[in-house]
């Protein structure tokens, strides 16, 4: 096994609080309460340790990171350390003055999420009236502040028809990059899978739309495309491999190899309040658990893709099979792959059930 390399990026989930209620939210079903959040000094220490460890990118995420009144102070600390800072935001809480303050603090980049291009549908999916119009306005503040903008559009059967307009919106807002991200099905999204899963035909149309736009907009707009891996033949390299590139610090200070890893049973994730980021990255059992290829069962262990997809997504494998080390069912060589694809196709062809919105308590329904 090769030596463990330092992490490239840190996802700082400053809070789980968010005014939106997207039914595919990547936060865990059991969210951290405000009272358990790390304070300003603790986050600043995390960033100091991250920079020393070799982290280059810090993504401020949540929940909605702008809920935190100390966001500017955290950005400023990172900027002072030479870290590339990216704000991943729903945008609805940010006004012109705040965007200016964030730019002044040294923010490098802003990523605004949209729930589609049709305001009524987008507000319905986000569960926040007036949200879409507000996002358009805030994208203008980003431009005014001289900050580069990425638009992030999470796509699914209830908004895929808007994809062409979403691409147009990105260009119109002056975004240089667009993430077209099909929903990934764990956590809240798995609960809502039947309401969100596109048909294979919808997916193929979307892929063709993206490819045509990429050719047309070369040099103007970069489009990153994340496919729903149920319809792929091979699983995604989740987080670029467990404990290889990323670390995630949750609102209460737990350090995870990915933001969904808290769903895995029997694992202990250490906390920055008790141990340094460096010790956790190089020395914790949780980060060692699925690192590299040594943990893999067959057919992964002898697969020629094992250092490309790194065994896919542990959270998805567990959520779908109940076994931590199972082959990710998104892989065509997994036992349950055919059944998974069939269930996706069935669900996508049937009527969409009502959305279960991301609210504290609703996941238990």
């Amino acid at each position, binding site marked *: 096994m090769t030596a463990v390399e*330092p992490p*490239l*990026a840190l996802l700082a989930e400053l809070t789980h609080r968010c005014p939106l209620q997207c039914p595919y939210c990547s936060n865990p079903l059991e969210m951290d309460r405000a009272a358990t959040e790390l304070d300003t000094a603790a986050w600043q220490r995390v960033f100091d340790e991250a920079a020393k*460890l*070799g982290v*280059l*990118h810090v993504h401020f995420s949540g929940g909605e990171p702008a809920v935190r009144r100390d966001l500017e102070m955290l950005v400023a600390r990172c900027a002072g350390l*030479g870290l*590339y800072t*990216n704000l991943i935001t729903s945008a609805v809480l940010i006004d012109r003055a705040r965007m200016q303050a964030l730019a002044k603090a040294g923010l*490098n*980049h802003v*990523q605004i999420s949209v729930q589609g291009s049709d305001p009524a549908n987008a507000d319905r999916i986000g569960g926040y009236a007036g949200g879409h119009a507000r996002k358009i306005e805030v994208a203008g503040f980003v431009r005014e502040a*001289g*900050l*580069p903008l*990425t638009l992030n559009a999470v796509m699914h059967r209830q908004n895929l028809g808007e994809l062409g307009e979403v691409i147009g919106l990105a*260009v119109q807002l002056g975004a*240089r*990059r667009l993430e077209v991200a099909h929903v990934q099905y764990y956590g809240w999204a798995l609960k809502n899978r039947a309401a969100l899963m596109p048909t294979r035909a919808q997916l193929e149309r979307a892929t063709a739309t993206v490819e045509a736009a990429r050719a047309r907009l*070369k*040099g*103007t*707009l*970069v489009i*990153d495309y994340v496919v729903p891996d149920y319809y792929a033949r091979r699983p995604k390299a989740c987080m670029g491999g467990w404990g290889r590139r990323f670390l995630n610090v949750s609102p209460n200070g737990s350090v995870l190899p990915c933001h969904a890893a808290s769903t895995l049973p029997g694992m202990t994730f250490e906390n920055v309040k008790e141990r340094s980021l460096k010790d956790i990255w190089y020395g914790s059992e949780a980060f060692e658990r699925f690192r590299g290829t040594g943990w893999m069962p067959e057919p992964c262990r002898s697969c020629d893709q094992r250092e490309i997809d790194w065994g896919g997504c542990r959270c998805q494998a567990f959520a779908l099979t109940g076994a931590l080390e199972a082959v990710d069912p998104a892989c065509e060589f997994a036992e349950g792959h055919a059944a998974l694809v069939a269930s996706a196709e069935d669900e996508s062809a049937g009527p969409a059930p009502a959305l279960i919105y991301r609210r504290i308590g609703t996941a238990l329904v």
Partner: protein
Amino acid sequence: MSTVRIAGASVPSLAPQIRLRFDEARRRWTLLAPERVLVPDEIAVEVLQLCDGVATVDTIAAALAAKFQAPPDEVSRDVIEMLQDLADKGMLVA
């Protein structure tokens, strides 16, 4: 917006979302973009350090040709090709 076309008179600079930075932990130069880390080769680093939004491609190529004692035409061609590639990826403006 139209596609950027790099020529001798172009004045290139990194796009606003891109940072060129020395990575102390790994002892190498990096280009930081949103969600991406690129590792430019030595020549690319030399070129990009001169892309200050003031110098033209011709000026940059001439400086490099002098520094490395290489044929100016060849250097100019290589520099334009490299910058065009970055512009096509949305990482360079001119």
